[in-house]
Structures are given as C-alpha cells and as structure tokens.
C-alpha cells in the first residue's frame, strides 16, 4: 500500500488500495461444504479464507512477544481494554499469512528485540522488566530521532503500530470508542444545527429549497416535460 492509500484509509476508512489478487484457487463449487460465516464471499474467497485459517506464521514465543508489544502500544485505560484483549495479536497473525510480504519485517523486528535484550541482559525481551523493555522500545518508537543503525527496527515498529491501531479500531469496541455511529439505515438531513453553530456555518436558502426533504422520501417523483419536479 502506498502512502496516499494509507492516508485515505486512515482518515476516512473508505477507500481501498490496489493489491494483486493472490493465490486464487481454480473455480470449484465448494461453497456448500464450507461452514465459515460468510461476509459476501465467492466460493474461491471462502476457500482461500479457510485455507489461511489453517496456516500460521508466528511461533508461540513470537505470539507471546507480540502480546507484550501490542499492549505497550495500546495499554488498557479508562476508555478500553488492552489491545491484546481485543484479539489484536490474532488479527496480526492472520494478516501475516494473508499478506506474506509483511513477514520479513515482522519477524526481523521481533528477532531484533530479542537480540537487544540478550545484549542487555542475556535474556529474551519478554523476560525483561517493564523498564528494561521500554528502554529498548524508546530507541525505535520515535522515527524522527532514532539512530540510523536502528532504522530497520523503526520500520518494524511503525508496521506494528499501524497493525495494532487498525486491529483495535476495527473491532466493535474500537468503533464505539472512536465514536463511529453509522453503518445503519438512516435519514440524512444535513449537519446537526449545534455543529453548524460551532463552526459558524449555515445552509443557504437555495440549498434548503433544492435538497431532498425527509418527508418526501417515500413519494414517487413526478416531473413536468422540462424536468421540473411537480410532485
């Protein structure tokens, strides 16, 4: 995904990016034999999802390390649980098999953390104290001031931060915490008055006259021969 697509996703969550169609199995009607919950999938897509669910990339040790890390990125607070409690590690594990291009960066970064822990204290990262962990994380969490020698680990932590944030804010709790209240049948009748007032904005008379009125939304439209609405 290029940067522009990131931006669109991150800020509107509305537009996808181009990715190559990967490993699509030949067309066979296996839909009936699959019991996965559907979300509008074709039989080939269901088959691919089912196959991905049987694969794993991370070792158990790596998943434990990921649990520590995602909870450093998004710890429990007054507004919500820690990232790992919302299934963020499982989500990242799925993405690693769904998009194998993520694998080298993720594994390389986890390994870098263990190497640095070993240099510090002849231990794995997970065995360090919270303070010792943070002393290493601080080297890679701030891209603008990190040392050149640590740049590949910075890239890893950027990716992990991205996946943790997206994994958290695309859950039911995450949507609620962010305050997204759409994705349900609605009648759009413009920006609430209190919001217009906050920004000193107003709908002009012309706009109000021409835009659809909620009370008309079930009346079949009628035009005259010039295309003027007459009913």
């Amino acid at each position: 995904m290029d940067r522009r697509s990131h931006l669109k996703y991150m800020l509107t969550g509305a537009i996808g990016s181009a990715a190559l169609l990967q490993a699509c199995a030949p067309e066979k009607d296996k839909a009936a034999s699959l019991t996965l919950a559907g979300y509008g999938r074709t039989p080939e897509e269901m088959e691919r999802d089912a196959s991905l669910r049987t694969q794993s990339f991370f070792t158990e040790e790596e998943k434990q390390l990921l649990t520590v890390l995602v909870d450093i990125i998004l710890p429990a607070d007054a507004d919500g649980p820690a990232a790992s409690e919302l299934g963020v590690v499982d989500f990242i594990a799925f993405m690693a098999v769904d998009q194998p291009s993520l694998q080298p960066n993720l594994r390389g970064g986890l390994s870098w953390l263990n190497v640095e822990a070993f240099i510090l204290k002849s231990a794995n990262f997970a065995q360090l104290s919270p303070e010792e962990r943070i002393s290493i994380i601080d080297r890679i969490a701030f891209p603008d001031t990190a040392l050149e020698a640590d740049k590949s680990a910075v890239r890893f932590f950027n990716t992990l931060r991205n996946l943790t944030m997206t994994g958290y804010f695309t859950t039911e709790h995450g949507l609620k915490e962010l305050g997204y209240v759409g994705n349900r049948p609605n009648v759009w009748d413009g920006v609430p008055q209190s919001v217009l007032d906050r920004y000193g904005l107003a709908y002009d008379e012309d706009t109000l006259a021409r835009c659809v009125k909620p009370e008309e939304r079930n009346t079949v439209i009628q035009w005259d021969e010039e295309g003027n609405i007459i009913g």
Partner: protein
Amino acid sequence: MKEKYDVVIVGSGAGGGMSAKILSEAGLKVAVLEAGRDYDPAKEEDRTQLRWPWESPRRGAGTVRPFGDFDAAIGGWEIDGEPYTRKDGTKFDWFRSRMLGGRTNHWGRISLRFGPKDFKSKDYDGLGENWPISYQDIKPYYDKVDRLIGVFGTKENMPNEPDGFFLPPPKPRLHDLFIKKATQPLKIPVIPSRLSILTRPINKERGVCFYCAQCNRGCQVYADFSSSTCLVKPAMKSGHVDLITQAMVRSVTTDDSGQATGVIYINKLDQSVHQISARIVVLAASACESARILLNSKSKLHPDGLANESGLVGRYLHDSTGTDRMGILPTLFDRDRYNEDGVGGLHVYTPWWLDNKKLDFPRGYHIEYWGGMGMPAYGSGFGLDYLRQYITDEFGKPQVNGGYGAGLKRDIKKLYGASIGMSGRGESIPQYDNYCEIDPNVVDRYGIPVLRFHYKWTDYEIAQAKHMHDTFEDILTSLGATILGTKPTAENQYGLAAPGRIIHEVGTTRMGNDPKTSVLNAYGQGYSCKNLFVADGGSFVSQADKNPTWTILALAWRQADYIVEELKRKNLG
C-alpha cells in the same frame, strides 16, 4: 445450445444491460453472456452492505478485492488466469469485474451527461476527432435514462453541463460546506453532485436510499444504479432473456458473406466450448474486451479481425486522467460525533470551470471531494509515524511522530474526520499510438489470445495534472488545511495516475461517419458487418471530463431503438 436467438449480447454491464432491457421489451429473444458469476446484492450470500469491519478476518483489507473485502467488484486489475501484457515499457492497467452487472456494481454512481461541446471538441481546439452525433441526437436518450434509472442533481443552466430529470440532492456534509466556503474567493464553482442514487423513489420496484454511504458495496434495496439490479434482472422477468454466466466469449462467428452468425464461448467452469447463434450480435464486454473479441474473430473475409477494415480496432484507447491530494483541517480536530454516512459518494463537486484557450492544455477536468467520519476499516489508524507532527496539544506544541501508549488513542480520536481530500478527473486526447492489440505469444486460461497494451500520456495530460495540483493547493490553502505529502513534479508526471487506473477506458472501436477513420457508424454498427454492434465505451470518440457510464447507457438505448427499427425495415437479420 441449439436455440437460435434474435440477439446475443456479450457482457452484462451498463451497455449490455441496457441492450437486453430495450431489445427484450421489443419482443426479441435475447441471450446475455456474462464472463463472471451471477450476483445479486439483495441475496444474503452476496451481501457486503451493512457489514462491520470485524466480519472480515482482514478487516476489509484489499488483499483479494482491490477496493477491499466489502467492495462489490469481483475481479480487479489482475485476475488469476486472465493475464494481459504491455509493450515497449509503457503502462496500462486493465480492471475487469467478472460478475453480473460488471463494473456497474462498484462504480461511483457519478452520472454526468456529456455537453454539446464534448461531442465537437475538435471544432474548438483542432485536436482529436468530432463525434458523428451531437448533443441534440443523444439528449432524448439521456432524458429517458434519467427517468428510467434515477439521478439526483440540480438544474444549473451551465452551457456544457446539461441539466436533466433530477431527483433532489442530499444536503452537503460538513466538509462540503467548508469546501463551498473556501472555493468562493477562488471563483471555483461547487455544485450538488449528480449521482444515480434514489433520494426519492422513481417507481414501486426499487427502494429508496437509506444513507449508509456504501453504494460501492451494492445495494440490497436497489436504491442505486447497477446494471444487474436495474436492467438485467427486470429484463429477465419478460421471459425473453436467457442469462448465461461463466461464459468467456472468444470470437464472433461469421458466414460466407461476412455477416455475424453468433459467438463462440468457453464455459469457465469446465472449459467446454459452445456456440450461440443469433441474427444480431451486440458486443458490450467493455471497450478492451470487445476489441479483443473482434481482433480474435479472424476469418478469410476478415483476416485482421472482424469490423477491422480501418485497422483501428483497439486504437485510440483512452482513460480519464486522475490525480489527488489531501490535507488535515485542524478546525475539525475533536469533532462532534454524529452519523455522517450520507449517500455513497460525493455530495458536491466542481464541474470544469475554465476556458482552455487561456491555458496550456486543451481539455478540462472535474473535481470530486471527500472527507468525513467514515466507517473504520483496514488502514484506519495507520500513519501516526508521520502524521502526529500535525497534531498540536492544548499549548499549540506539535506532537512527536510515532510513539506508543495513551497519546496514540488521544491523537487518533482528534484526527478522526478531520481530513479533506480531492480528486481531479479529466479528459485526455485520444491517440492513434495508444492501443490494445493481440499478443501473439500469450493465451489466457481458456486458451484465448490476450491483449497487449501500448499507452503513453502526452504533454497535454501532464500539463493538466499540474494544473490540478496547483488548484488543489489553492483550495487546501484557502481551507486552512495542513497539506499532506509533497506536491508531485514533472519527474513523476505531476502524480498522473497510470492509464487504466481511473477505469474509464474507452475509444477502441470508435464511431464516425467515415469507414476509413472509424470502426463503427453513428449507431455503433459495423460498416461491413451490419448485424454486429458495439454497445460499450468502445464506440466513444472522446471521453469528455465526465464519467462515461451515463453516455454508455444513452448510446446503448439509442442503438437498441435503431436495431428494432432496422429489423422492422428488414435491413437487418
């Protein structure tokens, strides 16, 4: 398949759907061949509308479907087993939707008429070619399409943005109001968009928009236009239309006199070969796919492919230009939350507003605007390693990029819904040297020779893209936005999207009055092969700074009326 049809239509998108509807209503027996699967957004197994991001294990990421898991398009720029190639290091990306309704399932519903000038652009700048028809020839059909399918908009009396039979538009969203205000001092017009979404019912068969902002997912109450829900399925109720899915057409068959007799197709499920015979063949497989079928329809009488006496099949391929820019509006940090979903697309847009005679590029563009509090999906929350610097704390101090912990949540909540972006979509000049042809060395999974593309933007399109970016910066500056990213330069063609990326490719079988310089006549009919028609964007002479769908629909309807008349006069079949 022994049955003889009056008409076989290849493709079920905008052109094929309209052909099927009008021809079947005239009592003709019609077969519609679709290279993909059946699809109906109202069926639970196909439904992606009103689903939540967590229903997808990849949270809607674009791993499989290019616009994400919940987008309706089944297909993309790359399809396993259906390759294409490129020539001389040039670039063209070919998007195909393999499903009933084709690309009308996920499109942006932007339904703009071409204006009087768009059909006669050569008269203004001497470039390209004029259409053999004028706005007045097609106007009655635009009117009929408006009334049959439904499009919202407003009468504006702009000379080259013709008004129609509009439904009332939805009120602008918050970011639209900011854009209207910011563009006023720049003298850039911003008017209600024109989208084929039902803000009021046009009949009792289709539902009315319930504002989920998800038209690209396909609508279960059919409140937006897709060919499958509004044309093909209603046409099938007549009993005169047989739909054959998973049918990959290879070629048009012809008799000794050179007239079309039907098509040969491969059943994609079992690779079996079939023929369908018909009195009339209508190709509506998409501009490039129809050109491919014609070029693969070689015979003694047609050694270079069917309807290719001019040698122009595949030539003058052209897509819309496109580039975009975005920014963050600090005024909108920590917005009030409310349901802002609206219709599935832009509520306002900018039609082309300048005089090209005073500019260094010949054709115009329109601007689409986006922003708001959309539903989170894969990618939401990305980018805090370079975006946090644009967020200031209560003392006005910028945040440090990256980080971890509580500050991340605080900043993403601040940023949510504070972005604003714009996309330019413009007209290019069709070039003889931009084309698709048959690659002699490659076949697809069904053994059908594939297309090879050759496409280069010219200085005109590059200068236009530069102008788009100058305009975007003016608008974002006037908005008071923090402009993100760096402005593209000449080295990267000012951010001009690769041809094919805007998915408006047209022109490969263009119409005209002279058989030497055009493939089809003014009705989209073959010159030597009179019972062969093309009903997709292939017949376009030029694509204007408008999206092509509404014109494909109007031309297909006009063509279908002509077919019925010609049959009555016994000039056909």
